[in-house]
């Protein structure tokens, strides 16, 4: 059920994850040790900045913090709506980080395949973009 494709690269540490983010997603260092890149949906003419930071967390192991902003200066109702909508997603919950209401997934990535990690990153960024688009429509 959980078989991995042959030759699928497995990521074991932050260095390995950085290699994937820089090599596959054109990530750049933020200066604070995290990496930042843009996930783009060209057909829909939308894109979202994503930041991936790292920290070891006790027995949980190595955690990648995948954060995609939703909206800056949110109203109370938007904070509530984001938290309610996040409950429908497979991954991600709401935090307020770097001045923006954001969707974040704390992913224990050690032993995960490159493909699986990229899938989580794309899913979190897509989920954040769905919320962002919804709020943009409300403003129009």
């Amino acid at each position, binding site marked *: 059920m*959980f078989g991995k494709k042959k030759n699928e690269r497995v990521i074991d540490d932050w260095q390995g994850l950085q290699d994937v983010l820089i090599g596959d997603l054109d990530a750049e260092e933020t200066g604070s040790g995290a990496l930042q890149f843009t996930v783009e949906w060209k057909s829909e003419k939308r894109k979202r900045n994503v930041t991936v930071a790292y920290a070891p967390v*006790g027995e949980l192991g190595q955690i990648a913090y995948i954060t995609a902003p939703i909206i800056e200066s949110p109203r109370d109702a938007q904070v509530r709506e984001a938290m309610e909508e996040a409950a429908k997603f497979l*991954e991600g*919950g709401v*935090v307020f980080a770097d001045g923006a209401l954001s969707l974040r*997934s704390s992913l224990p990535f050690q032993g995960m395949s490159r493909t699986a990690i990229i899938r989580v990153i794309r899913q979190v960024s897509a989920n954040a973009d769905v919320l962002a688009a919804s709020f943009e429509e409300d403003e129009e």
Partner: protein
Amino acid sequence: MFASWDECIAHITETFESDDSSSIHARLRLEANPAMVWNGTSTADPNYMVVHIASPIAPADQVDLLHLAAASEDLPLGALRILNNTVHIHQALPLAGLEPERLDQAIRLAATEAHALGKEI
């Protein structure tokens, strides 16, 4: 590592005290705070399954949600969802490759964080 969700939920109910459990979920009683565990499957890839962990903080209409979201940002897990009108700490762990010890630790940590954020209110 768990070979299936059935193995995972069996481990959870053997390891933690539960008030209520089924083949798809368990409501756990922990020292710090209660927690709920259930499974989720990707609609895009049915082979990709996650274990959802959530621990309640407070009724959503009785707290400053933005303040909680800012406070949670500093915690190791820390992301918030509203379930049944209650703010929860939430974490999703991919089931593939998940070690039982790591799952146990994540459940305890979610409960501890929810308890800590409850004090922020």
